[in-house]
């Protein structure tokens, strides 16, 4: 929308200034105090022109100043042609509390100016000329603007070329312009659409269909500390508009981003309500310092992660991948940066949008473990005792309940007992209004996800108000305020390691969770098995509510010192308060190995985080002929403090009261920690004619976390780009509509270690003398004053290619990174008294290719857009700690991943399963474990003390048995549109990675202590009855090796998953009830997946996307499929 405003604001009236100041205060107060006021205000705008009252008192002022004042005091704006309207003429006006039409009548009385009023738009025209034009066939033009699918386009600007006269289309796409001459040209423009020009000629009705601009080369994208036109970007940045994923019925933003970016792996490792998402950019990995990207919300690297935000309050997300894009975040940028921009209003925007969707979460049958039923299990147990009697002189007999296996049928299916179909709901109200000086975007969101596991849920309320206020032409203030309140109940142990279903299904399936009389047993203890609680009661009775309140605020002032030079002072705070309470009644305590009744216990835990950031930035934008400069300098300080407390309670009188006040014993604890950082930043973006692009950036960070000798470090980067398609010689290649070559190099860091790791800490170690506790203290760690950042040097070269008028747009990047000085507690001999020392040691290399293709395959009435991205990430450990000692893989069980020099990170490490010693001869002639006998499991003898097979099976025979690193990951989004129908399907997947099914350690435990897979019936029982050769005998003392980490558990984890399928229908526009537009949609999240992997979730990983320990499946909170229906209404 164009707004005519070529005169400088003149502050020549004192009363005028006061008015402004009052307005500032009013606006601020209103924003901070109440979101609902803005709701009222916006709804009042419906009849703005009738309701607005103005008071003006000017004598002998320029008409232009008066018009300006009206614009400033209201939301009205004027459109006129200076050549035809004499705005320099002096006017008098004195009105009090009058409507706009009264004001205008009064104001224009005695002039030759006429006006017409359309909503907030006032068009001025010349009466004399009008009569003249009438003579020369001037006429009124009206028409409708639609998109290529014929849908009306509201908000399109229609201007008579070379003038400022024009109109904006209404909700029906209709417009009307009066007094247009035949030789004049109308210009139709709209964001995201190709601008069209049409000569009026002798038409009086002009309908226009605008065509979408294929690729938004001119689009503005969020970058570090600012924005940049896509065409001028020289770094590797992927961005996505929130609209692209608005219909997904997910609570967590992360789920909506799956499959959208090249170079970004986003896995849903578990289905816990509101959680379970893991990010990894360009395969980055660290030993101990994590690989989660830095999340920056509206410029603030905050504590509040991506999972707490409501997807509905997001406008766009940029992922900064290479060092030139991230280096302004210096010591925190090595893992990449995710920039989140929340919704801001634009001038002229006025809309109320309400969205509701309701869905049902269901756990698919696919991938559930294939366990024995009650009768099969009883038979196994019977035979187990029979074999013990036969081979081990066991004389205890078969316990009674297993003597007659045929008495049982299927027994209990714990999935069915503990799972339910759960409701998920999301309601969002968005109020956006932008007038000349004040813009506000308010978003209210309520989301509740009932967990598919009984008695679990997560509920979140998000409120956000983003406001900007233009105090004067040069001074702007902004206030962004976000409040998030979350409550949840997730029974602990559901997600880490073996989950509650994973514990429950290991029990004897003949056990019943509910007695025939309707009561519930509180514990189970089948013969030869572990005592367990009744997991149904555990879920029903344990209490674990967590409440969290986040307040994110950002206030800033920006002053334009001279043309193009802006100083901005911004203060941000992030406050997070968490309260968690637990109570385990006597009937629901314990877990596997430990059965109720046990004395009740409870706890009360609080956490308080506060982080603040003060940013000072100076930006200068200047163009001299074709030289364009964009300079940034800044200084910022950030500090974060954390305080926590917890009280553990025991010795409750009974189960009646959950709160800890009734407990006899209450033990409390409290603590605090903090970190701080000072940074200097600088950047120069220069381009010549938007064709030769160049950028240098620099950050210097000082941080409290590092050793006294190494508190400061520098992070520079440089990048360049060349828009080849703008060169003359490219005219010969008309199919190439856009071609840009980019390259960058830079250094960034990772500071994710504990706050005080560089210090030698003194811990409390008490002892008893004289029968009383005596205070003791000892060093708990070795200090390292040289401890400093982990540094990643990254090189990137990329190509952006638009073909066939940008119908196809391809981005390619190659990157190569070297992470050096890894923050790692290197293992040292414990003869020192310490297991390790925090150091900067080790080196990893990463390199890879990324390709993304956006294509507009069909653009007619039936539209088809497809976006594909592929990422090929590779890594290698180059150097590790002392003696290059491998990391991980030091135990027969657990510790499944090993990182070794010269190999990719985090390979699966274990024994190579080689079947069973079927005969005495096989036993006699083959390598053996100390516990080996005929009929036991055999592992391959691949090594010995000197690396040469030695006939003995021991830890020297552990080797690489799998690779959790994918060959490539990919995402594919297809969007279709036909008339009022639209549809999209999002795929994501990975190829070539392995998954270790560690749950098999439990479900293939043949000691009779757990229920197990049906295959375990095929075990070796005697030479005559040797089974399938894959399952060993149950002889005591020989079964352990079958449960060592081994190749039998490793599966191909490649998959293709349909993350989301959505079908939408836009209802015919109706003005009834004030509804501008409405859309109904059906959405299916986690629709299906295709994979050879036999488990439930191919994205599973006990340790998330941790580079060194990924890909282990130990049964997790299952990931639901969500069926959802939604409605979107624009008012």
């Amino acid at each position, binding site marked *: 929308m164009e707004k005519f405003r070529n005169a400088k604001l003149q502050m020549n009236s004192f009363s005028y200034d006061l008015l402004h100041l009052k307005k500032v205060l009013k606006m601020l107060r209103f924003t901070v105090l109440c979101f609902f006021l803005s709701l009222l205000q916006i709804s009042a705008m419906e009849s703005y022109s009738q309701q607005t009252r103005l008071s003006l008192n000017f004598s002998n002022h320029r008409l232009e100043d008066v018009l300006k004042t009206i614009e400033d005091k209201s939301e009205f704006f004027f459109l006129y042609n200076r050549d035809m309207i004499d705005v320099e003429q002096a006017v008098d006006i004195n009105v009090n509390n009058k409507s706009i039409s009264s004001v205008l009548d009064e104001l224009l009385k005695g002039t030759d100016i006429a006006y017409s009023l359309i909503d907030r738009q006032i068009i001025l025209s010349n009466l004399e000329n009008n009569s003249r034009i009438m003579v020369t066939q001037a006429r009124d033009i009206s028409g409708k603007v639609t998109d290529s699918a014929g849908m009306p386009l509201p908000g399109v600007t229609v201007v008579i070329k070379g003038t400022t006269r024009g109109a904006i289309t209404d909700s029906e796409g209709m417009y009307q312009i009066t007094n247009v001459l035949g030789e004049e040209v109308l210009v139709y423009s709209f964001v995201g659409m190709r601008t069209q020009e049409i000569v009026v000629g002798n038409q009086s009705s002009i309908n226009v269909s605008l065509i979408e601009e294929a690729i938004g080369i001119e689009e503005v994208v969020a970058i570090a500390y600012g924005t940049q036109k896509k065409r001028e970007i020289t770094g590797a940045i992927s961005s996505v508009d929130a609209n692209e994923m608005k219909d997904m019925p997910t609570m967590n933003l992360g789920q909506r981003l799956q499959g959208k970016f090249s170079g970004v792996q986003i896995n849903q490792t578990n289905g816990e309500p509101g959680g379970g998402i893991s990010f990894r950019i360009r395969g980055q990995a660290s030993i101990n310092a994590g690989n989660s990207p830095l999340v920056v919300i509206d410029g603030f690297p905050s504590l509040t992660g991506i999972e707490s935000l409501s997807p509905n309050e997001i406008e766009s997300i940029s992922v900064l991948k290479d060092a030139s894009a991230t280096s302004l975040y210096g010591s925190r940028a090595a893992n990449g940066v995710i920039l989140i921009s929340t919704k801001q209003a634009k001038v002229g925007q006025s809309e109320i949008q309400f969205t509701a969707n309701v869905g049902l979460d269901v756990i698919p049958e696919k991938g559930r473990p294939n366990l024995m039923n009650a009768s099969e299990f009883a038979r196994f147990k019977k035979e187990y005792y029979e074999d013990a009697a036969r081979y081990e002189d066991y004389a205890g007999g078969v316990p009674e309940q297993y003597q007659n296996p045929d008495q049982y049928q299927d027994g209990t299916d714990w999935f069915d007992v503990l799972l339910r179909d759960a409701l998920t709901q999301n309601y969002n109200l968005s109020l956006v209004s932008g007038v000349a000086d004040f813009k506000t975007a308010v978003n209210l969101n309520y989301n509740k996800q009932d967990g598919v596991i009984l008695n679990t849920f997560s509920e979140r309320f998000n409120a956000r108000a983003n406001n900007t206020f233009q105090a004067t032409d040069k001074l702007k203030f902004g206030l962004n305020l976000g409040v998030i309140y979350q409550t949840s109940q997730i029974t602990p142990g559901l997600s880490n390691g073996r989950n509650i279903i994973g514990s429950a299904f290991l029990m004897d399936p003949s056990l019943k969770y509910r007695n025939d009389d309707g009561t519930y047993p509180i514990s189970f203890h089948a013969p030869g098995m572990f005592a367990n609680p009744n997991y149904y009661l555990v879920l029903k009775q344990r209490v674990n509510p967590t409440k969290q309140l986040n307040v994110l605020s950002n206030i800033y002032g920006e002053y334009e010192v001279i043309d193009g030079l802006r100083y901005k002072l911004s203060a941000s705070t992030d406050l997070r308060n968490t309260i968690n309470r637990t109570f385990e009644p006597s009937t629901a305590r314990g877990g596997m190995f430990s059965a109720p009744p046990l004395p009740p216990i409870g706890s009360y835990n609080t956490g308080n985080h506060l982080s603040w950031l003060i940013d000072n930035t100076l930006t200068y934008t200047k163009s001299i002929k074709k030289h364009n400069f964009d300079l940034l300098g800044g200084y910022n300080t950030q500090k974060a403090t954390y305080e926590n407390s917890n009280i553990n309670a025991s010795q409750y009188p009974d189960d009646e009261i959950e709160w800890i006040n009734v407990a006899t014993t209450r033990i409390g604890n409290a603590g605090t920690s903090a970190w701080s950082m000072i940074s200097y930043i600088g950047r120069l973006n220069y381009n010549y004619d938007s064709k030769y692009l160049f950028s240098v950036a620099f950050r210097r960070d000082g941080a409290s976390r590092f050793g006294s000798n190494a508190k400061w470090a520098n992070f520079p980067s440089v990048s360049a780009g060349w828009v080849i398609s703008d060169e003359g010689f490219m005219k010969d290649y008309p199919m190439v509509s856009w071609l840009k070559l980019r390259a960058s190099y830079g250094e960034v860091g990772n500071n994710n270690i504990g706050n005080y790791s560089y210090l030698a800490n003194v811990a409390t170690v008490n002892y008893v*003398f004289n029968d009383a506790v005596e205070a003791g203290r000892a060093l708990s760690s070795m200090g390292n004053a040289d401890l400093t950042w982990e540094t990643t040097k990254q090189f990137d070269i990329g190509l952006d290619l638009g073909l066939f008028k940008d119908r196809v747009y391809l981005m390619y990047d190659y990157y190569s990174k070297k992470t050096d000085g890894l923050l790692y507690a290197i293992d040292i001999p414990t003869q020192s008294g310490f297991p390790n020392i925090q150091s900067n040691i080790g080196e990893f290399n990463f390199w890879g290719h990324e390709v993304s293709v956006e294509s507009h395959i069909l653009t007619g009435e039936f539209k088809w857009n497809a976006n594909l991205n592929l990422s090929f990430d590779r890594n290698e450990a180059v150097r590790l700690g002392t003696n290059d000692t491998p990391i991980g893989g030091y135990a027969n069980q657990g510790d499944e991943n090993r990182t070794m020099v010269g190999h990719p990170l985090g390979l699966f490490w274990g024994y190579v399963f080689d079947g069973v010693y079927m005969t005495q001869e096989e036993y006699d002639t083959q390598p053996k474990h100390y516990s080996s006998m005929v009929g036991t499991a055999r592992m391959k003898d691949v090594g010995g003390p000197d690396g040469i097979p030695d006939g003995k099976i021991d830890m020297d025979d552990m080797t690489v048995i799998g690779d959790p690193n994918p060959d490539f990951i990919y995402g594919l989004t297809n969007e279709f549109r036909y008339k009022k129908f639209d549809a999209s399907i999002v795929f994501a997947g990975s190829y070539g990675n392995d998954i270790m099914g560690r749950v098999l350690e439990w479900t293939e435990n043949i000691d009779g202590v757990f229920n197990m897979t049906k295959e375990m019936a095929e075990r070796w029982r005697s030479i005559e009855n040797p089974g399938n050769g894959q399952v060993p005998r149950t002889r005591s003392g020989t079964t352990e090796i079958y449960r060592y980490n081994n190749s039998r558990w490793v599966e191909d984890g490649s998959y293709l998953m349909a993350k989301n399928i959505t079908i939408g229908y836009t209802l015919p526009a109706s003005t009834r009830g004030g509804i501008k537009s409405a859309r109904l949609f059906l959405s299916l999240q986690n629709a299906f997946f295709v994979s050879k992997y036999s488990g439930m979730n191919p994205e599973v990983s006990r340790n998330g996307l941790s580079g060194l320990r990924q890909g282990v499946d130990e049964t997790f909170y299952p990931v639901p499929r969500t069926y959802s229906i939604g409605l979107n209404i624009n008012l």
Partner: protein
Amino acid sequence: MKNKILFAVLLALSLSSCSEDFLDIAPETSLTSATFYKTETHFEQALTASYEPMRTLVYDGIFMDEMRSDNSFYTYYAGDRGPYLYNEVIALFLEDETNQHVSSRYNACYVGISRVNTILSKIENADLEDGKKNEIIAEALFLRAYYYYDLVLHYGGVPIHLEEVTTADEAFLPRSSAADVHIQIAKDLEEAMPNLPVANTFPQSGRTTRGAAKMLLAYNYMSQPEEDYEKAETHLKDIMGMSYSLLDNYSDVFDPAFENSKESIFEVQYKDGDAGQQNDYVWRFIPKCDNTEFLMGVKGNNYAYTSGGWNVPTQEMIDSYEDGDLRLDASIAVVEGVQNGDNFIAEAVTNVSSFTPSDGKDFHYFINKYYHPPYEKEFNTGSNWPVFRYSDALLLLSECIVEQNRNDDALPYINEVRKRAGLPDLSNVTLEDVIRERRHELAFENHRWTDLIRTGKAIEVMNENGDLMKSLYGFVLPIAFNVTQEKLIYPIPYRELQINELLEQNPGY
């Protein structure tokens, strides 16, 4: 215009006037080495912390020193496969270099040594009064000797660290010979002894004393490759001259009311409650059962993880007591109940000496010495663990004299112990007599395995015991109980060998 720019720059700078101090954030909830090791209180606290690793030695010793021997075994439980086998393999002589007890004990010793070395390194330049300084040094040296003695006994020659390790490089030392470790122990103890207090008032505080140092030194001389019985005898006789004596009743020795008594020369201290000073050893010793509350007064699941059924007295052990030995019932009790598969429900606790199994009932023996119910909290008891007792000194002296072939000289000492046990005097004494007497007197106090090694009986006794176990229990693999010279010390932990190339593994592992 320029003024405006200047104004903006100045504003930016003034708002950013944070100094370097902003980056100096020290932890508020704990001290760091920069502020610790300054005052007398600091060194006392550091010394207190240096006792703490002894508790780990006791716990691992339950398996490595007692269940390893013929005194006790474990009750087989199907659920204790996989990760929990590391207890069982110790008893079966099937442990390898990854065994958790083996690494835990090794680590704990060096944690203790490191705490002591830090004290010794820092105290040199600390501003402390000389007398106090010497007291602290003496106590620290005793502790270092104690940990090295535990190491040399269980792992053979180990790296000798005598200075605080402050950089990674200093952490790499090769193994010294066992003889050198013994020499270092003697050196530390000889240096410490003059400044250690002599126990005169009872109950004692629990800190070490000159008596404890002499006891340790005697053990050290008698365990080193070239035994020095003469020196050992001198120190043991010094102990006879101190204020120690036997309590009247053997069972009182283990009564919490008599902790740190005049019979105690050194014991590891515990206290029940919520301060984290408790142990749970007796919970390990009682049988795994559904109704632990019947035995303990409070319920605690003891089937797995914090499980029971370990260190269970063998029938052979019970049978080895002489008739009328008062120590039998004080040391061992029996619980009768109903067994269903692996599940057990306790019904009665009785004396071993008068026990005859009832029909249809099953029973389990368990160690009675540390059993003082009812308890208030699960897995939380305060019983101290005896390390050196006066009766131990008497019997060690007997052994020392017999080893010097002056058998008759040993009679008064051994008979003093027998008398309290309600047994007749011996008229002549052999090494076997002393070993048997120590077995019963010090039963389940983590002495038996190292006694067998010191007296050269381990291979013979344990192979014999292994044959017995194999004949009794079908679940014992044929390969088990292959007790050779190499099995007399444990392996150096796997992790240490991986990290420190200077280390060599003990033969046989």
